[in-house]
């Protein structure tokens, strides 16, 4: 007899609705799974058989054919176990199939019939909801994750036997509430800017970066607090909005990195790949591509410490995602597009020994001039062009360490950042434009210089030998600084401040 249930497959971040069809017919006992299953799906045959047998039910001693339709797309993952088991039980009339109409079933089985959690539940739920499915049967382990989606009737299953019993009795679905955004609940930060004393210019740069979603490059000797500051950046960024957090959660779910803690979904991602990272680990890859570091830092921060130590090719692949906000990966299994709209924060030493220009405390740079230049030039011009702000981090002085002046806390800074962002949103109307993403024509439209500021720009352009690209960067940064001042026109002081964050001399190529 033929039975059919609905499930979903997830490849990359692409969700496809899958019909699991099971036909049991007389013949030699055998189980065949068709419809381009990969190894993990094929193995589900053995899990399903054992799970059914161990749940006081009977796996048919007949010829069982399982079809995963559409049959032309590849299937991977272990979450087909439960739908296959249910379809087998329906086809042998061991379970009541009526309540399963239009119900999406997802879950992995262990041999004793227990249902285990799987990766990627969130993106699958979102997509299936968009296709009009209202009811879903999901593993209990994915309860927290599933509750993030609003308005789905869910049944959370722990054991196969329990599901079958409930189906016979009349199954009760639970309505998901969606994620609650409560303003009060600001988890206290483990890492706060108030722990950094001194370093005012670095903190100022961080604040501007946070307000305009710019990219930043920090240059400084070892131990000057570059990493410390970067780790505190997520703390001053506004929390993720609902849409944003759903996008982020979907990526993390697909990568199998979604933590159970729902609170963590509101803080922006912070990824700090080690400098030995390969190009594929950044973009995402694999035979069936998984999201890489740049997608995992979507809507958040990608911190690249020791930037010149990264492989040159690895860095170059950042160019296109930095521009487009997504990355497209082509593999044998297909072409996949992952969102990757991140802020790049780079940190580097000024030279191989680390002290060029910062040699005050008995530490002297002992690099030859060409070494210093070559070190800076390891980062290509096109990549440098995508960095809006440059900032030097100096080792803190003894006076700073012992000062009684308390530094501002991240919460205070964040309030200012939120204000500046709100001001931006008002101007651009749409949620998605930030100052950092302005195109040259948009700069012309939105970045109006006051007459004094225009004069200053003219002098600066000549005297500081700014390039056309540097000009656009300065405009964007001064736009953000003006936003922080809640000023619609860019005044002289805003532009003058922005000029301090221009490219360091030894990155300029002649």
């Amino acid at each position: 007899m033929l039975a059919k249930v609905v499930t979903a497959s997830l490849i990359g971040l692409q969700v496809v609705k899958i019909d699991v069809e099971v036909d049991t017919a007389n013949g030699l006992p055998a189980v065949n799974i068709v419809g381009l299953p990969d190894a993990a799906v094929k193995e589900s045959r053995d899990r399903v058989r054992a799970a059914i047998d161990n749940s006081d039910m009977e796996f048919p001693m007949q010829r069982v054919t399982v079809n995963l339709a559409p049959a032309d797309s590849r299937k991977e993952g272990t979450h087909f176990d439960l739908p296959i088991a249910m379809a087998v039980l329906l086809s042998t009339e061991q379970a009541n199939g009526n309540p399963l109409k239009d119900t999406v079933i997802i879950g992995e089985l262990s041999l004793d019939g227990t249902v285990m959690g799987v990766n990627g539940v969130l993106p699958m739920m979102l997509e299936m909801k968009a296709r009009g499915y209202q009811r879903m049967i999901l593993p209990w382990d994915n309860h927290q994750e599933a509750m993030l989606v609003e308005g789905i009737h869910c049944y959370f299953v722990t054991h196969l036997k329990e599901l079958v019993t409930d189906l016979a009795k009349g199954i009760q679905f639970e309505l998901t509430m969606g994620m609650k955004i409560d303003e009060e609940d600001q988890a206290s930060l483990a890492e706060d800017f108030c722990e950094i004393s001194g370093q005012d210019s670095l903190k100022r740069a961080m604040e501007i970066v946070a307000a305009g979603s710019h990219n930043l490059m920090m240059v400084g000797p070892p131990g000057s607090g570059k990493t410390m500051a970067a780790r505190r950046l997520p703390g001053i960024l506004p929390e993720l909005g609902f849409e944003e957090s759903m996008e982020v959660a979907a990526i993390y779910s697909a990568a199998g990195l979604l933590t159970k803690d729902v609170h963590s979904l509101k803080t922006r991602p912070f990824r700090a790949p080690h400098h030995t990272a390969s190009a594929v680990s950044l973009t995402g890859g694999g035979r069936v591509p998984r999201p890489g570091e740049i997608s995992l830092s979507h809507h958040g921060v990608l911190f690249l410490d020791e930037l010149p130590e990264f492989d040159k090719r690895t860095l170059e692949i950042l160019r296109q995602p930095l521009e487009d906000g997504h990355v497209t990966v082509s593999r044998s299994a297909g072409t996949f597009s992952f969102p990757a709209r991140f802020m790049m924060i780079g940190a580097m030493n000024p030279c191989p020994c680390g002290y060029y220009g910062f040699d005050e405390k008995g530490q002297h740079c002992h690099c030859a001039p060409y070494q210093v230049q070559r070190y800076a030039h390891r980062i290509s011009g096109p990549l440098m062009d995508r960095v809006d702000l440059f900032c030097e981090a100096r080792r803190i002085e003894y006076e700073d360490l012992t000062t009684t002046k308390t530094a501002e806390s991240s919460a205070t800074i964040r309030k200012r950042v939120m204000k500046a962002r709100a001001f931006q949103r008002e101007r651009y109307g749409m949620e998605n434009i930030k100052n950092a993403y302005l195109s040259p024509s948009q700069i012309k439209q939105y970045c109006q210089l006051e007459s004094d500021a225009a004069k200053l720009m003219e002098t600066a352009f000549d005297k500081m030998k700014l390039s056309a690209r540097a000009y656009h960067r300065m405009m964007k940064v001064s736009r953000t600084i003006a936003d922080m001042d809640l000023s619609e026109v860019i005044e002289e002081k805003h532009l003058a401040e922005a000029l301090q964050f221009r490219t360091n001399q030894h990155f300029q190529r002649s």
Partner: protein
Amino acid sequence: MDQQRMALISLNLEGITAAKDLLAIENYAGNFGDFWHLSASCLQELFPLATEKRKRIIKIINNPKLYFDKVSAIESNYAIYTILDQDYPFYLHQIYDPPYVLYVKGNLKPEIPLIAMVGARKASAYGKWAAGEFSRQLVQFGVGIVSGLAYGVDAACHQGALDADGYTIGVLGCGIDQIYPSSNRKMYLEMASSGAILSEYPPGTSPQKHFFPARNRIISGLSHGVFILEAGLKSGSLITAEFAMEQGKEVYALPGHINHGLSQGTNRLIQDGAKMVLKPEDIVDELYSKQIIMQNHRVSVPDHIRLSKKEATVMALIREKAISIDEMVFHTGMPVSEINSLISVLELKGLIQPLPGKLFTSCR
């Protein structure tokens, strides 16, 4: 005359440049014109032990046509001055061992008095700043700057002079067509059009270690005085200073921090009697008193710049010592955003300048 020039240049092309050899040839043959008539046995007598050298000289004598073509090919791109020429640089001619042949790209302007400025290649920010600043100001008095077109101080000197539209000469330690280090390419081209590039080595010669000390004697020989900005205790810049003293030129030195390695050489020079330079006028006044330049006031005078109260506060801090933005915030109590914009304004007014590591220093 032409025969003599040709002989000198051909010998130079073959790498026979030592004054000792050339003098021996001149004494033996009478003059360089008769060089072409020397026979193999004469050469055997002249250079009994140097087989290699003899071979090269015979090659020249046997193929005058070949060398004539070579020289005219070079002369189509570069000017060649031999020591026999009337327009050979006068002061260079006076030194103990002037180069017999000079290749020049650009223009030699004998009417412009020259000062050599040299210093460490691995210069500190202080040295580079001083180099740029002093050369910029010196050219405003109508002085030309000679240096070695290397990294560090040399490059900063040339750049300073070019920025102020002054005259500057670069003396190379390699063939005139070799740009070494290649990062100075832009400067090389600018100097070739507005100033001059000069070398005693024929085109195509690649840089070699021992060429550089030798080129230093030309740097000092061309000029009225040698100004040393930064030098370690054992350095090429001190070699130039030594040449200058031997050649009877004035030696000027920039004082520095006594603990700083790169200032030890210059401080020692001052102790030994070199003239300490605190402002460009120190050099200019001396040239004026020797009637080498005709005026000791600037061609162009910078305007007096007015500062607001806040700018003056920041300026006072920067005048004391090179200082970072964080320190300014600490000392003035002003918010960092304000300091940032004040600094940019002061920078654009040309009062301060950033050093690597983002310290700021005043430009007096």
